[in-house]
């Protein structure tokens, strides 16, 4: 497990050969890895000549030789917690940590476990989904993840199953110049319902390249939250692909505050009539941080709805990018798709890039997008100060108001409150003072 995998050298092939040689896995899985690795070899490393990677500067990664991580002992207090009963799986450096995990009783047939364990016990429930969902076919890191994932989370809820407690999936990375490829596979069969909180954290300088696959059957409801709070020196290159069947409802909340470079690529396929998807994204970045979302929503069937609300708050020399594509296929009539990207700049050096795109091949649809970027309103700041509120608190209040709108979309109260505290701390806002 300590074999080096020099990601940025020419020699991926020996690293991959060494990696698979140590694994005893079902043939089907080994084949997926080989195919994904071949795909990666064809795709190569993303370059800024590619439109999708034009703004993402990977040069800081390319000077580093990343290795497979060693096992790390983590103090449980370093891990985020959620108040109240949860199903909790913790992964340290991409490997399941049963001692830090806790799984209360589940409804009959429901499965929440590590993907590695499920390979031996429930392969038949994994195979229909793992690497079978469409989207991100040309994404190098998704291919790398399939080739190199060691472990991850597997949630499978049979038809009609409801898991009431939040499923808390914590991925912690630790080490210097290591790379981890955690995998998440969430499959909700018809009418199943779940609330999932995924948290990415760590310490040191590492590359985390997770891939989450979300499959929603007919009428399934998923509330999925992803909190990216990687270590300040870390790199996060994540991907999410989702397929939704008829009348399913997916709510994604994506919060990004950590890492020196963080990007997530999302591909959502609304593959059944009346499917709906809401994505609520908030990026907080400062200093030299870079935060990036690339989203593709594909409306394949009629009566689908999608709403994307992305916001970023940028201080220092931070930069953000948002690239959102709404694609409406011919025949996906009565689609209602909306997208907004709003960026608040707290410094003159901060930069936000927004690239909303629509491709509409049906003629009876409602689609809209909007993008705004600006500084704090000086009139609003003066108004608050003229009432006695000090300048720093006035600014914090205004930023909080801008960002809190997104946090308020989160219905999971303990998480929403924790994130509100995180936001307040980031803004050095003394809530107690104002309340």
């Amino acid at each position, binding site marked *: 497990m300590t074999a080096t995998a020099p990601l940025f050298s020419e020699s991926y092939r020996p690293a991959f050969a060494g990696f698979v040689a140590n694994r005893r896995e079902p043939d089907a899985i080994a084949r997926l890895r080989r195919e994904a690795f071949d795909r990666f070899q064809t795709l190569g490393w993303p370059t800024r000549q590619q439109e999708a990677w034009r703004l993402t500067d990977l040069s800081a990664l390319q000077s580093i030789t990343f290795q497979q991580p060693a096992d790390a002992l983590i103090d449980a207090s370093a891990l985020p917690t959620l108040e109240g009963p949860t199903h909790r799986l913790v992964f340290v450096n991409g490997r399941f940590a049963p001692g830090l995990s806790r799984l209360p009783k589940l409804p009959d047939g429901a499965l929440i476990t590590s993907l590695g364990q499920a390979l031996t016990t429930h392969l038949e429930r994994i195979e229909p989904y793992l690497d079978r969902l469409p989207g991100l076919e040309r994404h190098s890191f998704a291919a790398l993840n399939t080739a190199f994932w060691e472990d991850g989370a597997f949630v499978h809820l049979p038809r009609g199953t409801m898991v009431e407690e939040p499923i808390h999936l914590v991925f912690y990375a630790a080490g210097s110049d290591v790379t981890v490829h955690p995998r998440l596979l969430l499959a909700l069969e018809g009418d199943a319902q779940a609330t999932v909180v995924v948290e990415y954290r760590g310490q040191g300088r590492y590359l985390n390249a997770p891939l989450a696959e979300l499959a929603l059957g007919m009428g399934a409801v998923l509330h999925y939250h992803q909190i990216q709070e990687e270590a300040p020196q870390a790199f996060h290159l994540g991907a999410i692909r989702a397929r939704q069947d008829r009348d399913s409802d997916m709510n994604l909340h994506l919060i990004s505050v950590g890492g020196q470079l963080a990007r997530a690529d999302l591909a959502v396929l609304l593959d059944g009539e009346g499917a709906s998807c809401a994505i609520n994204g908030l990026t907080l970045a400062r200093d030299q941080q870079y935060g990036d979302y690339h989203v593709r929503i594909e409306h394949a069937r009629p009566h689908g709805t999608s709403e994307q609300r992305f916001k970023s708050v940028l201080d220092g020399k931070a930069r953000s990018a948002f690239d959102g594509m709404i694609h409406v296929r011919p025949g996906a009539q009565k689609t209602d798709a909306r997208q907004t990207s709003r960026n608040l700049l707290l410094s003159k050096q901060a930069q936000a890039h927004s690239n909303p795109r629509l491709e509409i091949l049906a003629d009876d649809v409602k689609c809209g997008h909007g993008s705004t970027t600006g500084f704090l*309103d*000086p*009139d*609003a700041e*003066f*108004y*608050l*100060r*003229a*009432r*006695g*509120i*000090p*300048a720093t*608190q*006035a600014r914090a*209040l*205004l930023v*909080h*108001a*801008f960002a*809190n*709108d997104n946090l308020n979309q989160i219905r999971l109260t303990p998480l929403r409150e924790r994130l509100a505290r995180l936001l307040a701390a980031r803004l050095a806002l003394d809530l*107690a*003072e*104002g*309340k």
Partner: protein
Amino acid sequence: MLEIRNLHVTVEDREILKGIDLIIRPGETHAIMGPNGSGKSTLANVIAGREGYTVTEGEIRFDGKNLLDMDPETRACEGLFLAFQYPVEIPGVANLYFLKAAVNAVRKYRGEPPVDAMDFWDLVHERMELVKMDESMLKRSVNEGFSGGEKKRNEVFQMAVLQPRFAVLDETDSGLDIDALKVVADGVNALRNPERGFLVITHYQRLLDYIVPDHVHVLVNGKIARSGGKELALELEAQGYALYNEEPGRARRAAA
């Protein structure tokens, strides 16, 4: 309590105020009238400390302290209040939260502990009645989606809660129908007392029927052209500003 001496102010290198002298004592209500662009709002903004105005000469003292040295929040904490001509909408900040933050900022400045939640609630309710404000406005974002009248009422409500020692009302009457005007005037009159000073800036005499001033000043082209008692307002109503050889709109053009 407020002493303005020889105040000259420029906006983007254009002189808007050209030597204002004005002394307001505790308990007095002064009205400043003048045509559009005479510099009325410039005076209000300079007193409150808004950026973009350069004082080239003169001084403003508040209880003997140099007001121009203070940032806007310090002026507010010292007991100064500006009722805005155009109250700002602040989406996402609830009115009540904002008010409490303001009250506590002032208390902190004075070395007092944060306001007791129950006391604050009682005060807010009492003052809401003063300006006939609906309780639902407390939960709404500051001024967001408020009508013109609601915004002005909210200004007077804030003043009633913050209880400043000196308040500047910048065209608080503009855009109000007669009923709303009466509500606003009643709110102001209820706050008048021997310790509190007011500077009421208005374009129309009408407001002064309801907030009866002790002194009236006519501001024309950056200077106080005439001062007198409340009867001066009536005279202006009858004769207009034409007697004062105004150069209309000059300050407004510079500020735009």
